[in-house]
């Protein structure tokens, strides 16, 4: 079969001199960056002025149309509904249900068309008015094709009802000629015509119908032969038309808007009980006769012809070429797949055509700041590559707001996409750290279950505390709950804050025990011990004895541990000497306080409880 592509379209980039220079580019998730450059690095560039612009190129512009967006949204609902009821579709009702789904899709297209038509009429700017009108005609063509596919592939109308459906189809899309066609094509005996075709409730079999029609046809012919209408050429012409005489029909070509109108009219009068498999003969000859060698078929004609030939793949193929986005072929193919009409054509690595089209369509949606959410569901229903495609796309969604980030994360968590959750949380945590929003960074690290990063953020908190003497984001730290266990440093941070709370509530004994345990259990980083011991000072200097003797011994041991470990300084400079001084003073004070406390503790324990 013939290859169908046209040449690739050329897009002109203004200001770029393609003769002397080249272009460099980069793909982004939804757009492409293009810039003029020169690959000839060695020569000095001639004094050809450089193009001063960077271009951002966007391909799937349809997703940015407000009106089409409704199409995408509503069809998404229909699509998901169809996937969900798949299991329930059985037996006789299955076909009816599928036809209903098809009609739903079509009504969505028509609604969109209507709206766009209104906007086109009201458009003040003629260029956009034209653009919109052209869009309307594309939508109209889409509905035309879909409707025909519904009749032939989904409804699978047999001979008899087939022509009725085709009549409706033509009437629906050739409405402007409807009134005229009524005059020319059936005025003689419309009632006879209607009754004849009153099939619902009609219990005649096809053979009976055919017989009836044959009888009527012969009668007409006899009238013509006998010259009954000889007096009136108009009536004679009508009679010929009703006999399906093609030449007579074509004489009134201007009233037939296109070849498929001609086809259906012809069939009505010459082969009303046409069988589906015979359709394409009549279709081809109708097309040829109608065009009369003056013009060649357009893409729409080819698509319709492929449908009449029951070549589904050809229909999809041609539609893919002719249409500017994947919406139509993706949804139609999916529906036809549910009708079990597509044999599985394995692509490259195992996904079939339906899936390929859905993937392409869904991928396009991800370029849009809100339509990407629809894309998620489409990926969900692609069993082979949907998941991995979703994984790759969802990471690239820019997370401008917390709300959006949470939405994305919820989607990932629902699908157990743990790596993506981790990655997104990490990105947000890192962003927060860089912007010094430690509370936010901490909560993202916890959500990412990233122990290392939680440790890092906790360290920052502690450093902040040391520098400023107070904590930021107290709410968060106070309510860590079991998340505290994520990393030792985080646990320490939480417990340390708890110590401060206890102290604030004047529960000194509990605070003291906690403080000590932080050191003895080794979860406090060594670097922080001095701070902890300094925190102990006020407790040591209370009038009442808080630390027990045992505890005081422990504290002393900690202090000695700390001081004995202090590394020898290389060449102490002025600042270091000053620091050393402060350190020494602190240590002295601590030693004194500890000693006093010990004395007091021993006394108390000796006298109260007799040890």
């Amino acid at each position, binding site marked *: 079969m013939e290859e169908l592509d046209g040449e690739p379209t050329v897009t002109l980039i203004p200001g770029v*001199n393609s003769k002397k220079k080249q272009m460099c580019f980069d793909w982004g998730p939804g757009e492409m960056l293009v810039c003029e*450059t020169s690959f000839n690095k060695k020569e000095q560039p001639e004094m050809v002025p450089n193009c001063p612009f960077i271009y951002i190129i966007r391909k799937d512009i349809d997703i940015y149309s407000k009106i089409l967006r409704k199409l995408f949204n509503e069809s998404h609902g229909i699509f998901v509904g169809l996937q969900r009821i798949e299991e329930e579709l059985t037996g006789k009702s299955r076909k009816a249900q599928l036809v209903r789904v098809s009609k739903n899709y079509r009504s969505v297209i028509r609604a969109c068309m209507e709206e766009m038509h209104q906007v086109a009429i009201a458009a003040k700017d003629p260029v956009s008015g034209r653009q919109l009108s052209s869009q309307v005609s594309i939508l109209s063509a889409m509905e035309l094709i879909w409707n025909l596919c519904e009749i032939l592939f989904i409804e699978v109308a047999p001979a008899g009802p087939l022509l009725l459906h085709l009549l409706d189809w033509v009437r629906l899309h050739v409405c402007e000629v409807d009134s005229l066609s009524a005059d020319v094509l059936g005025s003689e005996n419309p009632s006879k015509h209607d009754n004849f075709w009153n099939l619902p409730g009609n219990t005649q079999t096809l053979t009976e119908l055919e017989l009836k029609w044959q009888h009527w046809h012969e009668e007409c012919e006899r009238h013509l032969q006998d010259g009954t209408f000889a007096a009136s050429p108009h009536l004679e012409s009508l009679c010929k038309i009703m006999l399906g005489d093609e030449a007579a029909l074509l004489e009134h070509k201007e009233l037939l808007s296109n070849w498929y109108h001609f086809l259906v009219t012809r069939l009505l009068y010459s082969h009303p009980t046409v069988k589906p498999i015979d359709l394409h003969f009549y279709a081809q000859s109708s097309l040829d006769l109608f065009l009369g060698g003056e013009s060649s078929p357009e893409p729409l004609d080819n698509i319709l012809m492929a449908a009449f030939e029951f070549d589904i793949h050809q229909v999809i193929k041609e539609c893919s070429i002719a249409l500017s986005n994947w919406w139509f072929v993706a949804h139609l193919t999916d529906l036809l797949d549910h009708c079990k009409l597509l044999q599985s054509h394995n692509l490259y690595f195992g996904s079939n055509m339906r899936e390929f089209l859905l993937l392409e369509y869904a*991928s396009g949606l991800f370029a849009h700041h809100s339509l990407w959410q629809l894309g998620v569901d489409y990926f969900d229903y692609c069993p082979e590559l949907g998941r991995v495609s979703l994984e790759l796309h969802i990471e*690239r969604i820019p997370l401008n707001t917390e709300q959006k980030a949470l939405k994305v994360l919820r989607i990932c968590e629902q699908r157990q996409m743990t790596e993506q959750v981790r990655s997104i949380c990490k990105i947000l945590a890192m962003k927060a750290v860089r912007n010094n929003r430690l509370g936010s960074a901490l909560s993202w690290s916890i959500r990412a279950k990233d122990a290392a990063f939680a440790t890092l953020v906790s360290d920052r908190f502690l450093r902040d505390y040391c520098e400023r003497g107070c904590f930021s984001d107290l709410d968060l730290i106070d309510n860590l709950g079991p998340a505290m266990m994520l990393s030792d440093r985080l646990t320490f941070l939480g417990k340390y804050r708890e110590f401060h709370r206890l102290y604030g509530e004047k529960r000194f004994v509990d605070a003291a025990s906690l403080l000590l345990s932080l050191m003895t259990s080794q979860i406090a980083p060594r670097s922080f011990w001095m701070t902890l011991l300094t925190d102990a000072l006020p407790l040591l200097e209370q009038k009442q004895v808080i630390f027990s003797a045992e505890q005081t011994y422990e504290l002393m041991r900690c202090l000695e541990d700390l001081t004995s470990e202090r590394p020898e300084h290389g060449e102490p400079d002025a600042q270091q000497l000053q620091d050393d001084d402060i350190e020494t003073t602190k240590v002295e004070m601590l030693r004194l306080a500890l000693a006093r406390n010990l004395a007091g503790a021993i006394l108390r324990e000796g006298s109260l409880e007799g040890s």
Partner: protein
Amino acid sequence: MFVARSIAADHKDLIHDVSFDFHGRRMATCSSDQSVKTHSGSVWRVTWAHPEFGQVLASCSFDRTAAVWEEIVGESNDKLRGQSHWVKRTTLVDSRTSVTDVKFAPKHMGLMLATCSADGIVRIYEAPDVMNLSQWSLQHEISCKLSCSCISWNPSSSRAHSPMIAVGSDDSSPNTMAKVQIFEYNENTRKYAKAETLMTVTDPVHDIAFAPNLGRSFHILAIATKDVRIFTLKPVRVLIMLMYLAVFLSANYMDNWKCTGILKGNGSPVNGSSQQGSSNPSLGSNIPNLQNSLNGSSAGRYFFPPLDSPRAGSRWSSYAQLLPPPPPPPPPPPPPLVEHSCDADTASLQYPHPHRGYFSRPLNPLPENEGV
């Protein structure tokens, strides 16, 4: 249909590279102008690190260095509160010649980057502490023997694939053969070893890029020379597998590469409108038509699977005479090296992200194989 909008570039001289960040929200450009003193020579390439590492850029330049930059948000105390500016964190000075490309490794490898230079050496650096971008250590030096122009990391994070890097050379002498080399990390020797040389690429290579891996077992690599070629690399463990794979692949449909869009400068400021039509960009460059060519056999662990013969009446049929007859059933002959190539006025090349149909359109998934 493509639609272009423009923004003014702030450069006063030729721009050499543009780069989108991971989310497509920010871009970086680099040029020959010296208005902002980033390097002391033309800056050839700029690239973003994965946002998990923060806002980090790397650049490479004619001045023999590569640099790593980090965006800092002003501290609340100083005047620059809330404002961000870029700070150079480190300069990598090991190269003795112009550094022609710099690329970060896939994020699962940690904070790692590779540079390549005109002296033919690829260097791989790592920052062990991702919070300290001033400490980078040189982990590997790979000698390519030819002046290098571009590198690409294989983005696959699958455990089945070792880290892999492809290097292209723009050496213009006609005798040299190894214009594209592929190196793979060996867990045992802890070194990068040459895994493959693409012998059919004889023209200077300007750019190279791996495609994202969607769970395939093989890799796709695109190479920009005077045209653009796409290779598939399939790892083969055991010779017996060859037979199975040859049969498997000829039974399945192989996608064909087609040019579906062209971006071209028109030299004068006009409304850059395009014609109606449907297209999917495959690789954005001047690609007027496509050719299909087959060459002799390859060597090495990787082999390039045979293509289905094009169908009669297809665009490819005019080149049918270039195709050898389809391989006979097992045992198969040495598997031919297969590439798709297109004429192009060269391109700077990056892989589109997966949604950018780097497949062809669904024209092709038809089973008819009417033969050549």
